[in-house]
């Protein structure tokens, strides 16, 4: 039930961004060409036509879609319905496995009192780099609903935790210093 993002969402996004940028450039050129039409008419007209050509080519290519495995690629819309969710943190990492402590969020448990061993192959490729002892993740079990049908899905999503920065380090050091000063030892 491994879930990995293998489609080309990022390529789609880049392409649409490019088209949008080009369209903006075109608008700018059109605006400028209205103002300075007499002065730069020829140059702008050239740029305008070449950019228009480029955008049309790109849009035409985009509409054709990129063939994947001999089929036309188009993103299938889907919804994910979660049935069960845990917050986990990594206790131990072995060659192919990692052990994690689990806090059941669905059943509103107060303490992380469950534990499981996961195959590292259960982690989606972009998340593998986040696997380390103490790393925090969400484990969600649910249904993936697509127009073509529904399937069961397990998702392990490592949290992109903020990094310790100078400010948080300084705050921690201040707390440490305050504790050291106010605590006496005998």
């Amino acid at each position, binding site marked *: *039930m491994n879930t990995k993002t293998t489609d080309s969402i990022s390529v789609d996004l880049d392409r649409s961004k490019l088209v949008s940028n080009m369209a903006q450039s075109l608008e700018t050129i059109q605006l400028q060409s209205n103002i300075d039409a007499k002065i730069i008419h020829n140059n702008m007209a050239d740029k305008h036509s070449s950019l228009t050509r480029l955008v049309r080519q790109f849009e035409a290519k985009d509409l054709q879609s990129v063939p994947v495995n001999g089929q036309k690629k188009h993103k299938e819309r889907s919804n994910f319905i979660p*049935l*069960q969710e845990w*917050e*986990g*943190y990594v*206790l*131990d990492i072995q060659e192919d496995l990692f*052990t994690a*402590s*689990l*806090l*059941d*969020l669905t*059943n509103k*448990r*107060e*303490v*992380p*009192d*469950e*534990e*499981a*061993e*996961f195959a590292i192959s*259960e982690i989606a490729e972009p998340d593998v780099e*986040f696997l*380390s*002892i*103490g*790393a*925090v993740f969400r484990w969600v*079990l649910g249904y993936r609903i697509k127009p073509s049908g529904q399937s*069961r899905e*397990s998702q392990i999503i490592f*949290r*992109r*935790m*903020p*990094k*310790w*920065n*100078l400010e*948080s*380090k300084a*705050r*921690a*050091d201040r*707390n*440490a*210093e305050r*504790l*050291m000063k*106010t*605590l*006496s*030892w*005998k």
Partner: protein
Amino acid sequence: MEVSARTKPHNKQLEVSVFGPGRGESIVVHIGNDKWVIIDSCYDKDLGEPAALAYLRSINVDIRRNVVLIISTHWHDDHIRGLSKCVEECESASFCCSEAFNKKSFFEMISAYDVNKITKSGSGTSEIVNVFNLLSERGESVLKAIADRPLYKAGAGELECAIVALSPSDEQVDAFHFDIAGIKIKVGDSRKRAPSCSPNHSCVVTLIQVGEQSILLGADHEETTSPNTGWTAIVNSTLRPKVKCSVYKVAHHGSENGHVDAVWEEMLIDQPHAVLTPYRNSKLPKNEMIEEILKKTETAYSTARNSDINTNVKRDKVVDKMIKETVGKIKTEPKTGHVRIRNRVDGDINAWESELFSGACHLRHFSCMQ
């Protein structure tokens, strides 16, 4: 708490109660005259509070007045869950922890992880930070534990009682700070939960003497390759009280590293009462070590029959099926068990009587994980 466990010891009766598992272990010792000591804390998830407090309340101990000492042998949340609650409620108790904690690098480390309060599972250091904050607010001093240091002595007119720390040694304190440096946070690192260090160099082993009786509480102490750290350092110490103990809280959940023949030969009587708590993460104790312990004593007990059990949380059948497909099984701690042993202060050192509650068993009935 089982009804049969709700009997209070009389004033001249000693008691050692060991609770676990339940995220660590906890020990409660009656040192006579309704005075009590708590060593570490474990959280009883069925009762929703630290096992030590639940038990003491159930036998009508005045927790605020009659707990005189709380010893923490470890710092990680997983091992001392509920310790801050114990410190909060036991207002008259002195708090004792390893001398190794009294250093800037340790405070910087626990404070850094504690800043990281963005997960529901906790930071890994918040329990010990909460303890220090409480003591700081109250203006109370922390009692330092270091090898061969007296921690408690009963006052005049009370039963003769002495509590001594047998570890950490100076070299262990240095080793602990070396370990801490390894998990210290660096600017630019992603935040995460504090990892624990192994072996646990900060560990406090405790010797309790009341009247004729001596009790050795082995904490998570392990043997090392250096003669100046680990169990060898304790056994070879010329300063430790040269007594043989009749009760032993087995070190480090009965692990191979916690088991040292010299401890059994030089620090314990023949056939002492021994109690251990199982530990799920390391699948302890293992079969071969159970056999070793049973060779040393027939009166050996575990607070639970297993180190873990399959989870008993009721879930949708589809979810159960998906769990099976993804991870096989989800494990959880067994119910928190309780081994209680009692003897008269002036009783024969072999006259301890044991009682087992809530799933505790004789060690020979313990089922090891495969």
